[in-house]
């Protein structure tokens, strides 16, 4: 990645975190944002859009996932068969993962999940603060409603922070073009003022669709001085700027500043498949593979996360099979194993004994599993705890 690209991403990620801090007048005081859970388990869920098994964990796809298949697989509990038995749309799938219940909602996130989310269970039951619960998403098929359910006894007061970093970049590109500055998109450093302007103008983040609420959490203002170098260290590759790259940078910054106990990241570069470019879709898979590896490495070196973190990586679903009436890899709505059957990898603390669990599992099994890892074990939901983990 060239210097200007790095600078842009660095500056943009920094801007984001500074905006959150400024907006809610966090006092940067050298302490983590909440006391609950800072020495406890950390869970990161990485959901990475629609990826077919044939393009990933099958002979025909292993070249696209060198880090997952060669470097991470030996350290993982790997589930080759995880079924999405719900609606294979993004909002419904992420909602189902987070609630442990198959959600059948408006695909565009107009309504909240109808069962409590993991965030709500954990915040209500064990007192996690809002800074401990984040959704950072590339995918604007989600909305901020993903952070909390419509359940009366739960709801937004127990919800997660939800941000869409990629949308910031999109808005910046559109703004630059609308104002007659297409050169800004060509000269990446020139885009910085557009990014700043959007962040400052977006009233209560509505223009970006975010939901970020502050409380009395304290952050270390001095950390800001180390941010530039920290982000510089995180940007290691030469790939083009993409939504997922930026989502990753923001996620890493959130991890450094807030060290959330439960973080859900959704990548979506692979969704370029909807427009019919298979090569760009495969590029998105390779980006995801590399970013997960970077995340894994970061977890090993970040003292807030090292030794206490479990990462779950899974596609939300597959994509339609070649020859389907839904145009194959373009879409994810066929009723077929190519679309509904995918894989999941568990890394870290709960995967101390590497294994391959061939017993079929489901996306809704994540919620009770993660809740159980935090000691919340009596959830009355369809999902069942995952086998094979060291909990």
């Amino acid at each position, binding site marked *: 990645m060239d210097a200007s690209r790095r600078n842009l991403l660095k500056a943009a990620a920094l801007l984001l975190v500074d905006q959150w801090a400024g907006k809610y007048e966090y006092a940067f005081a050298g302490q983590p944002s909440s006391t609950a859970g800072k020495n406890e388990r950390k869970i990161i869920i990485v959901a990475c859009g629609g990826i077919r098994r044939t393009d990933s964990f099958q002979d025909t796809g292993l070249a696209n996932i060198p880090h997952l298949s060669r470097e991470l697989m030996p350290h993982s509990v790997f589930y080759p068969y995880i079924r999405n038995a719900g609606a294979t749309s993004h909002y419904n799938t992420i909602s189902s993962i987070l609630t442990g219940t198959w959600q*059948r909602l408006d695909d565009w996130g*107009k309504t909240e999940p109808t069962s409590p989310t993991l965030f709500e269970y954990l915040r209500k039951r064990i007192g996690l603060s809002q800074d401990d619960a984040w959704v950072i998403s590339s995918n*604007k098929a989600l909305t901020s409603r993903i952070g909390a359910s419509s359940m009366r006894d739960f709801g937004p007061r127990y919800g997660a922070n939800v941000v869409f970093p990629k949308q910031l970049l999109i808005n910046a590109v559109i703004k630059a073009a609308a104002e007659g500055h297409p050169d800004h998109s060509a000269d990446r450093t020139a885009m910085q003022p557009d990014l700043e302007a959007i962040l400052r103008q977006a009233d209560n983040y509505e223009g970006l669709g975010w939901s970020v609420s502050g409380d009395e959490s304290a952050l270390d203002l001095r950390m800001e001085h180390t941010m530039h170098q920290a982000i510089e260290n995180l940007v290691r590759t030469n790939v083009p700027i993409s939504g997922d790259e930026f989502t990753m940078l923001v996620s890493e910054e959130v991890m450094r500043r807030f060290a959330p106990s439960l973080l859900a990241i959704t990548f979506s570069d692979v969704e370029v498949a909807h*427009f019919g470019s298979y090569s760009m879709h495969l590029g998105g898979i390779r980006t995801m593979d590399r970013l997960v590896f970077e995340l894994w490495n970061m977890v090993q070196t970040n003292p807030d996360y090292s030794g206490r973190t479990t990462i779950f990586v899974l596609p939300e679903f597959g994509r339609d099979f070649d020859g389907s009436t839904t145009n194959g890899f373009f879409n994810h709505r066929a009723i077929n194993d190519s679309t509904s059957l995918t894989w999941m990898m568990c890394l870290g603390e709960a995967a101390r004994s590497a294994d391959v669990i061939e017993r079929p599992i489901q996306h809704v099994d994540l919620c009770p599993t993660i809740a159980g890892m935090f000691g919340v074990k009596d959830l009355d939901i369809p999902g069942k705890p995952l086998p094979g983990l060291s909990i």
Partner: protein
Amino acid sequence: MIGTAMNERPDITQKQAPGTDAYRRLIGKLPVTMRPALNQQFTEWEMLFPYERNRVVTFMKGVETYSPSALDSLTAPLWALEDKMGVKHWDFTQAVDTIENASQLARSAYYAEWRREVQRVVDAISAAARDVTPAPVESTRLMLIVLPANLPVDPQSVWKQWDPKGHEIKITGSTEKLCQLVIQGQPGLDGIATLAARQGAQDSSDLWLIDSEAKLHGMLSQQAPIAAFSLSFSNLKPLRDKFLAELNKAPKDIEATDQIIANLRSEAWGGWGLWPPEVDSQPRLKRFLIDLILSGNGVLIFSNSFVEWTAAEVLRRARPRTIVARFGMRIKPKPFTSIAIFENQQKVSSLPDVDDPENSAIDAAILARYSWLAASRYPEQDHTICVCVAEHVDSAYVILPEGKSLGWAPDHAVAPEELYGWLGKQFIA
């Protein structure tokens, strides 16, 4: 949706709108979720291709064969399923297929069961229709797919995933010439338009030229006995740009999207001077193109997506005797292109366009195969010769109907003239 499931034979001629009122009353006796697609077709009768008209009329003839009690009996499980799904409480439009309709169906817990039930009902009605309509006389069809010379496809893998019943052949000489020969003919053998006319083709929907660039249309003689429907991604740029701008105004909301789609479909696009001459005087082609753009992701963005989805929709809706689909080059993603991919790239970035041959070849190779897979869903495939030419590697993949065989040994390299000579004979045989 129902249109996809129906599979009637195409060769009943219907030149005039049938008894629409009677058919609409009959549609009203079918389960609710079957009605939108059928109603839509009668509403848009003038814009349908001959195959579509035949199909919907044939289907309704099939419905007519059922007595009221037999129809009730056939559809009872689907009615019961609609009750379980709660369809009557949905905002379900019966007049036309909508995204909202599709979305409500797809998120129902009974979606898979619903699809199976609809297919069962459609299959039964289609079978009944076949018993009361004459069997068509089938003739050989041709599908020529071109991966042009500037796309460096991988010779080791380009045919690897194609239908194993096909044959890889080597072409000697100027491989690029084949496309021209097929359209223009050669001494002693007419071009494909003339051959199609000899087979009985009368309508332009029987011959399609689909082009990533703007090369095919100019190859077809003005004197050809039937005019082709010709669509070029390049020539459509003014329309694409305008459409993209309009679509990007749409909020991310299903109901609003349905409204915007309805507005865009009814928009008088002719007033903008956006149509290329080969499309401008063709109302059905214009409507087809609007529907194509509104139904196909990427059609406005990538030329290869345009070619593939156009071919798929042409095959589904028109079942042509001949289709020539030529893929092409796309530009390299610019900074932010993958982030704001649905924006007009020339507007959002001042960087010059740069070709991306390697990745264009990857895209075109899989989409060429998808084009054949689209064709292979329909019974007409049993009579279709598919030739996909990879000009860069002087190679082609040929899929033949049952009972036909190559006229030469597979290891023998054929010249384009020889290949077209053989194709022409098969076509008119």
